[in-house]
């Protein structure tokens, strides 16, 4: 059976499973729709959070990015995991005790202000919408790479699947499909990783092979000989301060992303919220500690197989032809000496490897059965769909719950609110699909945007809302607007308008750190110059600090 047919079968089976799970978990209440009735067990919420968190980019591109960044790749590894410690210690338990539906719910109630609520809802929509466009694009790209379907049609298939379980099941449907999607994506990631670890180092456990075999010194030497960066040496390319700034911005951005925060409303208790963050990071770390190992093994293997060979020898490798066709692998014997050489200089380099190939080609390079190749396709789709679903729910809840119900029509009955929620999620799918088919130029820059804005807007006001009883609405509103305004201005100016970087050449990805500091300082100064919050708000803060009274789960599964 051809790889393509197998891929259709495996992808078809997983999609059927997602639809079935979505159908089983359809909901009839707004509580079920927005927070799965606060009834998701800690470990299941951990798996769902991990799937929510790991996007098509984590699955397909991250190991490749790291293999080209070397040591500095740490800002992705630590930046996209370290935020969970902040979430577990500083946010999740208290937001669960607060116990409503959305992040703007907390901001609006804690700061007793509908202005704060609207600002928060707009931030949530903006962050999630920029992020989700990239996810739908990811679905299209996986379809086109593995099945030769045009990207546009791939996006449409993704839209149909997501809207089915999201519209019908809301948070409950999304949660349980995400648990299934996590299982698919982690198997798809680990099987090729174990195989390539075994082939390259003789140790099947990637994490152990990285530390205890001599593969890293070998790759380091190989890269140094070719004039590439020394792989394990710190701060080549970006300096120490820049790496620090990016790491901080990604960590606090992670802890401020609304689609991750709302996951902690879905568990039954404060205690479950704490453990659930631990499970989430454990599940994430399973992939995130494997990625740097794949990066090393695959890079070493590719250089070894390709460098110094003649073009004819290279063509004898069957996977080479396939990836050459997709233009992810390019050969050009620039100096005409009949041998392909990899170098660190653009004008003499003769082998060009796209970063995505590091993960995507691993099953073939490791000579695994075509079933594994099909599984990797299904894994990439699972990663993209699960993240898209979580983001779509945030967009829908911001529009239907925070803006429509809380502001426009507080008298709406349960049935009407649920209907509006379903309509809004469908509208969000359409928007996301449109941007997936016709991506605006900024999609590649979206990561810097989404994380920078989350770091600069939500993180400071939520933390202060819990840990500083004196924090008031004036401080929070000014803080959010200044933090977000500064970050937006800097990223747009630096990335699109050719503005020179400020502050010792900090990259756009790291600017959220400054945005957050500005937000914190503005909150503090403004709140001290204006009246303290009313007594009932101070009582609210005291109550979110104490676990008891979080309320029992509304629904049990």
């Amino acid at each position: 059976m051809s790889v393509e047919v197998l891929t259709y079968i495996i992808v078809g089976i997983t999609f059927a499973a997602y639809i079935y799970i979505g159908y089983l978990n359809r909901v009839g209440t707004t509580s079920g729709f927005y927070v799965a009735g606060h009834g998701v067990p800690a470990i299941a919420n951990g798996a769902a959070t991990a799937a929510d968190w790991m996007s098509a980019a984590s699955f397909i591109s991250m190991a490749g990015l790291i293999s080209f960044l070397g040591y500095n790749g740490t800002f992705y590894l630590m930046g996209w995991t370290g935020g969970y410690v902040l979430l577990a210690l500083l946010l999740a338990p208290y937001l669960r005790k607060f116990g409503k539906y959305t992040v703007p719910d907390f901001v609006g109630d804690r700061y007793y202000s509908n202005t704060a609520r609207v600002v928060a809802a707009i931030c949530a929509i903006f962050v999630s919408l920029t992020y989700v466009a990239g996810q739908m694009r990811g679905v299209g790209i996986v379809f086109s790479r593995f099945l030769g379907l045009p990207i546009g049609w791939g996006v449409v298939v993704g839209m149909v699947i997501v809207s089915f379980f999201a519209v019908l099941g809301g948070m409950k449907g999304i949660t349980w499909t995400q648990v299934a999607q996590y299982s698919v994506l982690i198997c798809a990631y680990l099987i090729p990783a174990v195989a390539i670890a075994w082939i390259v180092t003789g140790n099947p456990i990637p994490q152990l092979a990285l530390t205890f075999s001599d593969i890293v010194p070998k790759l380091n030497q190989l890269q140094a000989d070719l004039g590439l960066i020394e792989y394990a040496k710190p701060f080549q390319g970006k300096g120490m301060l820049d790496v620090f700034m990016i790491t901080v911005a990604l960590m606090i951005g992670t802890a401020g992303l609304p689609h991750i925060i709302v996951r902690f409303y879905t568990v039954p208790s404060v205690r479950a919220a704490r453990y659930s963050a631990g499970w989430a990071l454990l599940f994430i770390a399973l992939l995130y500690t494997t990625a740097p190992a794949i990066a090393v093994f695959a890079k070493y293997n590719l250089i070894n197989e390709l460098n110094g060979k003649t073009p004819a020898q290279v063509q004898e490798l069957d996977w080479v032809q396939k990836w050459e066709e997709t233009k992810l692998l390019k050969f050009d014997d620039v100096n005409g000496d009949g041998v392909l050489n990899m170098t660190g200089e653009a004008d003499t380099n003769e082998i060009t490897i796209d970063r995505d190939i590091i993960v995507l080609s691993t099953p073939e390079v490791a000579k695994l059965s075509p079933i594994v190749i099909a599984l990797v396709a299904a894994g990439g789709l699972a990663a993209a769909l699960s993240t898209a679903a979580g983001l779509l729910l945030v967009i829908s809840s911001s529009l239907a719950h925070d803006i429509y119900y809380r502001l426009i029509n507080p008298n709406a009955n349960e049935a009407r609110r649920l209907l509006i929620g379903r309509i809004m999620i469908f509208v969000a799918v359409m928007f996301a699909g449109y941007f997936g088919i016709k991506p605006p130029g900024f999609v590649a820059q979206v990561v810097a945007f989404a994380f920078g804005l989350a770091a600069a807007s939500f993180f400071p006001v939520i933390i202060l809302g819990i840990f500083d009883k004196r924090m008031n609405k004036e401080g929070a509103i000014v803080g959010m607007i200044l933090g977000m305004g500064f970050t937006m201005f800097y990223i747009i100016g630096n990335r699109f308008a050719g503005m020179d970087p400020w502050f010792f050449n900090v990259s756009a990805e790291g600017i959220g750190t400054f945005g957050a500091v500005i937000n914190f300082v503005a909150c503090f100064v403004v709140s001290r110059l204006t009246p303290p919050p009313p007594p009932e708000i101070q009582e609210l803060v005291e109550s979110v600090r104490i676990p008891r009274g979080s309320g029992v789960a509304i629904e049990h599964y």
Partner: protein
Amino acid sequence: MADEPQVNPSKGDGVAYWKANLRLIIILLIIWAAVSYGAAIFLANPFYNIKFFQINLAFWFAHQGSMIVFVILIFVYAKMMDKIDRDYDVHE
């Protein structure tokens, strides 16, 4: 961590409970910063010269160790808060 567990949480217990919680958070966040910003970034150059099995210590922290410590920190927090919640009688 509690010296005298209380049966009825009054406002005073809430304050003591919150202090115990803050103390634990600060200790764990110091470790969190030490393994990430410390070992993998600000001390990366000195740690680059220390060998950890086949790789250098800075690289191990940057690409493996810090993430493993993060996972442990969260479970330690959850476990210790279980006890603190009970000691101050504020558990669910």
